[in-house]
């Protein structure tokens, strides 16, 4: 399979141009949600849940919020965003009439999704750091880890976008996949309180490894997260062929 990375960059660049035009309206909103979670759970629930594994509750959930915000940024971009460009705006057809090929286009979408993860993940990390909720400068290492997580969730979203019959079907993706992941990936409580079978299933999900990696980095233990990062890398690689194949099948007819 051939990808011309310069052409993929042209697609990425189109999204960047649009993003820099519109970011003022969407940026604050994307900030608001994670901050609300931090306040509601960290300060509200945190009064009752004093500590988890020796960590003040707000410090426990802060890295999880970084991970989940970054992942949702990629997911929105590559599910609804990609679908609208593909089906309603017909932007894909317009781009494919140029030297940009379908593989370049899909690679551009994936990298843009991961870029959105980094933009939002890094911003939330900054906010969390300003609140004094991280212990270590090693937290800057979350940026490449978030990028990897963004790639995985961009891949999953594109796979779904290539398969859905209509835009309403995304509610299945969110309700049956993203919401359970959000709730059971160790963001709000450690998985060991779950029944062993459920905990085992949860520990195979990509968001769990991303949350664990972010938490380790925020706590200043980068060596402990190598397995999680390796797992994320392997997942990203294993998923990679599918968005390309399925998008080709959907778009070229």
């Amino acid at each position, binding site marked *: 399979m051939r990808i011309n990375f310069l052409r993929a960059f*042209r*697609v990425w660049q189109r999204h960047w*141009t649009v993003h820099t035009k519109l970011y003022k309206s969407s940026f604050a909103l994307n900030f608001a949600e994670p901050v609300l979670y931090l306040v509601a759970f960290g300060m509200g629930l945190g009064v009752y849940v004093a500590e988890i594994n020796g960590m003040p509750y707000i410090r426990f959930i802060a890295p999880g919020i970084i991970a989940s915000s970054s992942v949702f940024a990629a997911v929105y971009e590559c599910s609804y965003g990609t679908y609208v460009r593909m089906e309603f705006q017909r932007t894909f*057809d*317009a781009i494919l*009439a*140029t*030297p940009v090929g379908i593989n370049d286009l899909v690679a551009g979408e994936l990298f843009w999704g991961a870029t959105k993860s980094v933009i939002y993940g890094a911003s939330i990390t900054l906010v969390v750091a300003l609140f004094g909720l991280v212990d270590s400068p090693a937290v800057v290492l979350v940026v490449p880890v978030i990028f990897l997580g963004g790639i995985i969730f961009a891949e999953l979203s594109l796979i779904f976008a290539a398969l859905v019959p209509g835009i309403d079907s995304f509610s299945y993706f969110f309700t049956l996949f993203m919401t359970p992941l959000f709730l059971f990936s160790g963001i709000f409580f450690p998985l060991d309180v779950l029944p062993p079978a459920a905990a085992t299933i949860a520990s195979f999900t990509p968001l769990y490894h991303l949350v664990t990696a972010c938490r380790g980095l925020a706590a200043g233990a980068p060596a402990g997260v190598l397995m999680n990062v390796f797992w994320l890398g392997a997942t990203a690689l294993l998923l990679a062929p599918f968005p390309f194949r399925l998008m080709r099948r959907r778009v070229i007819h």
Partner: protein
Amino acid sequence: MNAVNIVTARKLAKNYNSLRAVDGVDFEIRQGECFGFLGPNGAGKTTVMRIISCFLAPSAGSVSVFGLDAAQEPDRIKSRIGVMPQEANLDPDLNVLENLIVYARYFDIPKRSSAPRAAALLDFVELGGKTNVRIKELSGGMKHRLLLARALINEPELLILDEPTTGLDPHSRRAVWEKLEDLKARNTTLLLTTHYMEEAERLCDRVAIMDSGRIVTIEPPATLMERHGGNLEQVYLRLTGRSLAD
């Protein structure tokens, strides 16, 4: 005729599952001519265009554009053609000028070249005063003219137009025709599909009459009308037993 062939198709066929949309067609398009595919919806015109523009791969046969095999070198071919699609797929997240500048980037045309070119093209399609206007504020005719400008941003040697005036009012239609005649005068090779007789008679040097995935005949419109009598619509009815309106 010793003109150079820009497009050569041999035994070109395309199946969609069990449907044979294009059923073994042969044709050549010569440099500088305006070549039209004429036929009702479902005749296979758009599929042929999509194969020539390297969007679809043929199921059988071959097509070469500028002497390059469409199956082997789609990038090199696509960098030298312009495509004006049937539907207005302008980028609604960008304004009029940005649509051209961003589109030029897909061809690796840097802004220092694309900016003056975009300005000249907007003048050419009479949208010079609309550079910062949003796409949704344009009329249907304006969108068509912007699509034409966008298709010209890479200075294509071959311009492919799929039903370039469908859905336009008579005034806007004539405006697009005038632009296409200008381009023809500048030796751009034009390839268009249409089901408007007047469009084919006015613009095309030769037309291929298509019916159910096959080419029935390829002749200049004047020759067809002389030989079979009446206008192109009647010629079509006589050759295929069908009305173009079907």
